[in-house]
């Protein structure tokens, strides 16, 4: 089953994923018209500020078994087995908040959405961009991510890549093959992070 994988160490907090997500879940699916929509389209992925200048893109993990799905009192939350995705049917949602308080990732927010016929808040969370998947595209946040902090793939493939990286690190530690294997951080990202550190220091001074 394909999933969105998160590599927090690569995230630079640019929030492109948030914008892409909000656009994908808007009525018009176009940035310039989406910002004028009522209700304002909301992202279902949230880039959280964390320790130091690090950021973390937080979204629904489509857990199995999913606590939100187990607890929903209206049967609004179901699992689409084909794409292994937990989906919320907003028209059945009464926004009681039970899914929100059992989610350990705080991935569910309560907002109004154009997809709901009644004017009230409902539970919103990542739906793995079902519409895009059906058309053969990858999720909007993955497409928008410039640093590959978010990637779309089979768990086995991603794990294989991670294993390779660990093997490389061991190789670096035990031999002197550093130049061959270490990928340099691109200049722009290095500068961006240095800027972040300076700003953070300024903040600390008060």
């Amino acid at each position, binding site marked *: 089953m394909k999933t969105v994988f998160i590599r*927090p160490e690569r995230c630079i907090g640019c929030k492109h994923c948030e914008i892409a997500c909000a656009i994908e879940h808007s009525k018009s699916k176009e940035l310039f018209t989406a910002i004028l929509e009522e209700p304002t389209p909301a992202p279902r992925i949230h880039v959280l500020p964390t320790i130091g200048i690090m950021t973390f893109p*937080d979204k629904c993990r489509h857990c199995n078994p999913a606590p939100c799905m187990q607890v929903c*009192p209206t049967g609004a939350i179901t699992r689409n087995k084909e794409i292994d995705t937990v989906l919320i049917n907003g028209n059945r949602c009464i926004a009681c908040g039970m899914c*929100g308080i059992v989610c350990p990732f705080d991935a569910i927010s309560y907002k109004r959405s154009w997809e709901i016929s009644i004017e009230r808040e409902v539970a919103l969370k990542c739906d793995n961009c079902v519409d895009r998947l059906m058309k053969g595209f990858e999720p909007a946040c993955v497409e928008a991510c410039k640093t590959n902090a978010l990637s779309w793939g089979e768990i086995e493939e991603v794990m294989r890549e991670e294993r390779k990286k660990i093997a490389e690190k061991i190789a670096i530690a035990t031999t002197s093959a550093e130049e061959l294997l270490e990928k340099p951080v691109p200049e722009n990202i290095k500068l961006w992070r240095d800027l972040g550190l300076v700003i953070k220091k300024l903040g600390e001074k008060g």
Partner: protein
Amino acid sequence: MRIVVIGTGGAGVSAVEAIREYDKDSEIFMISRENTPPYSPCVLVDYFQRKEEIDKLFWKGEDFYKKMDVTPLLGKVVNKINTKNKKISFNEETLDYDKLLIAAGGKVTLPPLKGLNKKGVFTFKTLEDADKIREWIKKGKVEKGVVIGGGFIGLDAAMCLTSYGVKVTVVEALNRLLPRMLDYEMGTLVKEIVERNGVAVVVNGRVNEIVGEEKVEKVKFEKGEVLDAEIVVMATGVKPNTEVVEGTDIKFNGRRGVVVNEYMETSVKDVYAAGDIVESIDIVTGEKKPILLWSNALLQGAIAGYNLIGRKVKYLGSTNQTIIKVFNVPVVSDGNYIGEEIKLFSRDVYKKMYIKNNRIYGYMLINTKKNAGLYNSLMVSKKDISEFKDFLLTDEFNYGKLVTKAITLEKETYQY
């Protein structure tokens, strides 16, 4: 195999779903005293205010019994369980079983008041209750109402009556609202929210008598004060409905519920129990107590269902995590009041947490749900939170902090 389930509430339904996940052949019977498809009590408030929400009320669909290939025996009250011959009897009929699941739920506890039998006195627990109350309001001239009990159900009832224009007074015997969820300080804040929405609240109020000829007219307090009322809703708590096991050799612990082991099996072989009727375990303290909550019922129901068909799944315990929307303001409570208290109050958001030995033991939130699940998982997993202690309740705290903690903070280790 023939499986009989007593009760069509949350625990019963989730058990049947768990059974049917693996076992498509067994015969399943579901017995209930209520003559409806399975409904969700959490939706009662919405249903009461807007009758068109009935499709959400029947949370698994009106065709649940058909879909799950279950024979429903509705409108029947179980009066005897014969564990020796594996028979149960109800309304002069008997039924054999191979495995029995008791998910009979809870029932309202009524204090010994005079005048409870007057017309216009209701409880608010079942769908039937909701329909009856609505009918009463629509039929007669109901201007003033009294809700006795300021807990979860009491506030729900007050909100329902208010939505029909009834002037409501909530009477709570203890010194605060939501006494089982909140402490005095937080309960008082909820009281302010309730009062702001036009509901009068009387705390430390003990009702003595419900006065009226045939219908309710007045509610009389112990101290002598009198309130006019055309409707009285009794929301004085819920207890495990152990009546069904009384007189059998199934062990139960008085008001605390039926005793089960970690596989949700009672003291009698092949008889299981789940939901509001059993004595649950507090996963944080290990204490045994009834946890009469929806989430707990669904969890135990599913576990009982799996064990019934021979798939061993252990029940480790639950938390009493609750959320209620008081006039659209979410109020969350979880855990126990153990240890040191930390709090963060802003203009309209109130957070309080109990910490002992660098572990979370409980928390309460008013007007926010943020991080509730995260606090709950930290509490259940007994994580050391000493390094987050300073900002645990602020908006700065989030799940990402836990993740990035694993990656070192040094500048050099940022990767690309």
